[in-house]
């Protein structure tokens, strides 16, 4: 029975949870400000949750984790920069950015989905490199695009947009501060968590509609889905559209909380971090649930938030960043080498 339980929790998830618990204990014993740390953990969780949730549709539809998330992310960045260019601020800026980027992301997801349907079985490799490519194309775009807002272009005649655009006074921590309150010294980013909860509910509802159920059938067993009269390609396409649209909205939520829009090469590895988060949450390359995404987002980001101050006390170095690289890629390797059941039976 013990091994059954262990199997259900999953060894990586167990190790990471224990490690996180250990770090929390260490932080506490070092006398670090736990309230601040806890609210930072919550904020990082909320910042990333939507990007991690975006992995669910493609995994469920059998196309694997969406390594092509940058397709959605760049659309979100376009939306956010347009909002500033048009001089919106506050909630109008946020809603404008989200409103612009979701359809853009959906369109990008549609194109990306067409590609995915032609490379079944190789989605991860192709997605990764197509994602890298689109990020570098967008680098050229950021250089050439005719933006004029002084907040975004270089002050002294440099070319193109800045590498990071400050959101101060536009929508910096707009959601985080909305209805936020203080609990035992920890600042609760209510708005951010509400948005996360709202996204979860929407996704949960969608996954239980006929289309959502069909998508999950397609991923679970494409032959079965075909025999039930479903078009496998159609639902994989839908999954890609939803995932990229979520990625587009997700990066805006991320940026407002972070306080900066990061352009150029920044989105390069974002897909990888989201992929590892959901895998840490216990998902496999074939199946994922909302709970796994949330747990994963919390564990992964919690670990990073707390590792930095603890490491700084224990030793003076960049261990936090190194740890992030090792953990996030290690968990993906683990998932890749696991003998998985299911998938495309052909």
């Amino acid at each position, binding site marked *: 029975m013990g091994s059954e339980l262990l199997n259900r929790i999953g060894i990586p998830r167990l190790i990471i949870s224990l490690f996180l618990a250990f770090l929390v204990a260490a932080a506490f014993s070092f006398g670090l400000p736990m309230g601040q740390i806890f609210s930072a953990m919550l904020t990082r969780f909320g910042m990333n949750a939507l990007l991690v949730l975006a992995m669910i549709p493609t995994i469920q539809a059998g196309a694997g984790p969406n390594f092509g998330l940058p397709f959605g992310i760049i659309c979100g960045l376009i939306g956010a920069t347009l909002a500033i260019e048009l001089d919106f601020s506050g909630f109008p800026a946020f809603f404008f950015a989200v409103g612009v980027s979701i359809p853009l992301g959906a369109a990008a997801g549609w194109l990306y989905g067409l590609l995915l349907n032609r490379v079944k079985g190789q989605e991860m490799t192709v997605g990764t490199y197509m994602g890298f490519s689109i990020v570098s194309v967008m680098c050229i775009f950021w250089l050439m695009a005719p933006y004029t807002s002084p907040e975004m272009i270089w002050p002294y005649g440099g070319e193109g947009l800045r590498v990071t655009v400050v959101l101060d006074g536009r929508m910096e921590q707009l959601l985080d501060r909305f209805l936020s309150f203080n609990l035992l010294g920890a600042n609760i980013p209510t708005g951010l968590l509400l948005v996360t909860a709202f996204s979860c509910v929407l996704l949960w509802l969608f996954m*239980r*509609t006929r289309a959502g*159920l069909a998508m999950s059938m397609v991923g*679970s067993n494409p*032959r*079965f889905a075909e*025999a039930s*009269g479903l078009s496998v390609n159609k639902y994989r396409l839908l999954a890609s559209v939803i995932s990229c649209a979520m990625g587009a909205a997700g990066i805006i939520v991320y940026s407002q909380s972070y306080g900066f829009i990061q352009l150029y090469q920044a989105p390069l590895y974002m897909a990888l971090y989201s992929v590892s988060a959901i895998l840490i949450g216990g998902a496999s390359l074939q199946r994922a649930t909302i709970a796994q995404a949330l747990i994963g987002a919390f564990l992964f980001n919690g670990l990073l938030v707390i590792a930095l101050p603890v490491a700084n006390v224990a030793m003076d170095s960049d261990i936090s960043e190194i740890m992030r690289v090792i953990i996030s890629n290690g968990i993906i390797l683990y998932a890749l080498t696991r003998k998985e059941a*299911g998938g495309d039976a052909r």
Partner: protein
Amino acid sequence: MSVKNRLEMKNVSKEYYGNRVLKNVSFSLGEGQVLSLVGENGAGKSTLMNILFGMPVIHATGGFEGELFLDGEKVNIKSPEEAMKLGIGMVHQEFMLLPGFSITENIKLNREVTKDSLLSRVFGKPLKWLDMPEMRNDARASLDAIGLGIDEMLPVRGLPVGHMQFVEIARELDKKNIRLLVLDEPTAVLTESDAEKLLESMKILVDKGISVLFISHRLDEVMAVSDKIVILRDGEHVAETSPRETTIDKIAELMVGRKIESGAMQGRPPSALRDEYIIEIRDLSVDMPGEAVKGVTLDVKRGEILGLGGLAGQGKIGIANGIMGLFPSAGEVKMNGEPVRLNSPRASLGNGMAFVSEDRRGTGLLLDDSIEFNIAATAIQTSGKFMKPGIVTILNSREMGDHAREMIEKLDIRCTGPAQLTRRLSGGNQQKVCIARAITLEPSVLFVSEPTRGIDIGAKKLILDHLVQLNRETGLTIIMTSSELAELRSVCDRIAIVYQGRLEGILLPTDSDRDFGLMMAGEYSKFHGKEAV
């Protein structure tokens, strides 16, 4: 007849998970002779060959009982490599050739002729040079021996199928110690003239003193080449004969004949069913790999249980898969007089047809989903069952669960509850889930393929009884495809036999073993003219 025994099998038995698939089989094969093994699918031929070849599947499932003698010496073969070392060669049904390699390279695969290089003295064999001229010579010699005059340096890709088969044989022949060659349905993919050539080359092998174990469904070939014919049925050695002592129809009878308990045949006489056709199939062809259908015309009576029988690979499986739109098909199918759009699973489902696939784990189930979702999944998509209307129409879990519980009770599915994953169920219970899913569609025609494959005996009977009960209680028309003739004869009203992608004829369950055997071997029309069709 004082030939030395090359191979002797004594009292060989094998059990898979309590299921006895070979029972005390004994036979011997003389030096330079041809022994043909014939039998239906599942008669135990492949298990016997797996034992002879030391395949891992045998030893992973507890080994076998009995003894094997090779040239009088007792052998214990634990792996294919050992079998090769002992001089046993095998030509597989599927080609084991690398398309990008030349004929020579394929013939000498992993047995290349090498010569020393500078580095091989340090690093050993892997860094020895290939001796291509020598390899060519060897390949040429083997090819000449079986009379294949093509250039030995041609790449295998692009060779005609017949030539590939010869290359396989040449490769076995090139193994210098070869004593015994197993040919597993070597002519199945060949044209008639190629098949003839192959049989001739077999004679060359035999003249060299090589013994041949020949497995074929083509009884005329068996009659032409064999010194001895061994007939297997249900894992038992039922007869041993030779072409001089027997005829094709006798072999056919022996292959099929089996006791069916009297009273177990539940089929109804033709007079009990009205001549009203629910499905009319005209010239249906289906492009299903390995089970191609090439123009079947068949009418299905309303309310009957129709069996589709035939040997593996003859196309019986393809019929249901084609009509359900799972493999590309052409022709005409009418249901209740209305044409059904082909190549569209949705159209077939929409017309009231449901399908329980022979590929249970591949096509029939969502292995990592719950029983309840498996049962409901198709109905949700085709007819919007189990959905709760609202602002957004979402799944009604309670209704789905209730329905699953009802089905679990009705079909006696042994499980921990409707939420259990189907992967964890036994084969029989998985099959019941598949049937439950099909019934949930409330079909008027149910296609069931290989309903009892891989299922233990107790569950087999339950499933067949359920199908008959369904048919009798609701008038559901059932078209059941099965490789087990006995099973078809026990439940069907009529049985259609498919041979080489076409309908060979329709028989009643009460017809003789001989007729069934001849039809399955494609020899029926030769004996009876065209009357049966």
